[in-house]
């Protein structure tokens, strides 16, 4: 089995790569950072001895993605799974950011993710089942003031993922949307979680558990995965509480968290 992972040099991508390698899967890893990619690939080879193919790529660049696909074809790779991990998470009010930052969120989280998915589907095996995972977010469940663009981009992925899954069922392709709350991927994320106090910790789920269960669920053909009991509850609340009320609540919470972090 061969798994392709985007954003593989980041915290969540690395954890996914380790999980897949521990399961004995070969890997096709990509990330913007060639250096980071080289480091994690070397680490995986040394620890697990699986085959790791690596190619850095700016997935917002059409030509670069062409090259990535050509590279995989050249290596004779056929894929069984695609993990769309690459994404941008930038916080702050709409007016506090330059528009470049805002459109970058859309370009990476939405456009580039769909581009990679579209192209990677051409690399799937003729005879086997293919699995796609979109890393959405708990933020996809509500309108989120101060993270408006980010949350909406993740909402796009959630809806898209469910729709695409229905569409591709007859192609023997399964699609899973992963909607995690906070994840302690790096030391600064841990500090951010701590800054949110009790709720930060309550909505945080362990990285190693999330990655393990995500792969297991994807293989079983599940459609949506919200890790953690508290998060699941929040996601259900998000469906019953009116959006205007949620927006008000979220706004209050994020303003106070951002004050603490500043």
């Amino acid at each position, binding site marked *: 089995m061969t798994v392709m992972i985007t954003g593989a*040099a980041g*915290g969540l991508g*690395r*954890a996914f*790569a*380790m*999980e897949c390698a*521990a399961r004995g899967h070969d890997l096709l890893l990509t990330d913007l950072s060639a250096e*980071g990619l080289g*480091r*994690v690939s*070397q*680490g*995986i080879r*040394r*620890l697990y001895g699986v085959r790791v193919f690596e190619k850095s790529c700016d997935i917002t660049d059409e030509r670069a993605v062409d090259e990535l696909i050509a590279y995989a074809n050249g290596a004779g790779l056929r894929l069984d799974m695609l993990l769309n991990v690459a994404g941008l998470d930038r916080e702050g009010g709409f007016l506090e950011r330059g528009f470049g930052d805002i459109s970058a969120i859309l370009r990476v989280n939405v456009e580039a993710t769909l581009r990679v998915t579209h192209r990677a589907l051409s690399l799937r095996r003729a005879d086997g089942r293919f699995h796609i995972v979109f890393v959405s977010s708990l933020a996809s469940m509500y309108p989120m003031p101060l993270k408006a663009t980010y949350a909406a981009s993740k909402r796009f992925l959630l809806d898209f993922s469910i729709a695409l899954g229905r569409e591709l069922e007859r192609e023997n392709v399964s699609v899973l949307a992963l909607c995690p709350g906070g994840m*302690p*991927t*790096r*030391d600064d994320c*841990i*500090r951010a*979680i*701590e800054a949110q106090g009790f709720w930060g*910790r309550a909505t*945080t789920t*362990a*990285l*190693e558990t999330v990655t*393990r269960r995500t792969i297991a669920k994807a293989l079983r053909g599940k459609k949506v995965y919200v890790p953690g009991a508290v998060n699941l509850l929040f996601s259900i609340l998000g469906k019953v509480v009116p959006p205007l009320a949620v927006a008000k609540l979220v706004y209050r919470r994020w303003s106070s968290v951002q004050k603490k972090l500043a």
Partner: protein
Amino acid sequence: MKTVVVTGATSGIGLAACRELAKLGYGIIGVGRNADRCAGTAEALQGEFPEASIAYFCADLSRQAEVLRVGREIRSHVEEKCEGKLRALVSNAGGVRSYYTTTEDGYETVFALNHLAGFLLSHALLPCLKAGGGRLLVTSSASHKGTRVNWRDIMFRRRYNPLAVYKQSKLLNALFAFGFRDRFSGLGVSAACVDPGLVRTEIGLKDTGGLVKFVWGLRMKRGVEPEVPARAFARLIDAEEPPRALYYRGAKPARHSRQVNRKNADRLWNLSEQLSGAHREEAKT
């Protein structure tokens, strides 16, 4: 003048050890992870000991590339300024994490920092230790007792428990000293590990939160000042004879866990070589 390298030298036990050693007239090479703290500490120590030779190097030791880089830098420094000779390497940097996180190499952070970094750095500095008839001292802990190496999942990808991970890392420290002794004592480089006792430092408050922070906040109050273990390090380094025992509590030989044996030490050594590419690095030098 004799020179020592101390990692984790910007706070806690490492910093106190630098101070004790500077007092005895040793040249100090400290390693820390934060550039400002490194510069500030070097300046403060220099102020206290105007005669001493003090140099600080900054590196995030949880990252292998950084360990290799700083290892090369320290080696050229020692070759230029200290006749290529080191009296000791105190492998002391360490930490705790509340959650499973990976380093850029994909390895669990506490495993990478508390164990692999010292392994790799000792290889980089081996020529200097050999030339100086030096000693390797690893900061282990009594918490290495009552646990085993989780060989099936040494990076705790399943059921991450901060205390279990930390305890294992301190057991790995003792096993590393064991393996190092086996391989290099014939070359005149000795090795031992030191249990500093319970020490009042902020180790459990950094990069952690919740329960870990709370528990350490209570525990640290009962600890001794870092000067106490620091004096033990200074004595083991300053003593004419290299340390005979493998495991010390303070400066006195003490009993270690039965898990600290050759079988485990060899297994860890092989794994560490595989994970760090240390044998290849050594072949290059």
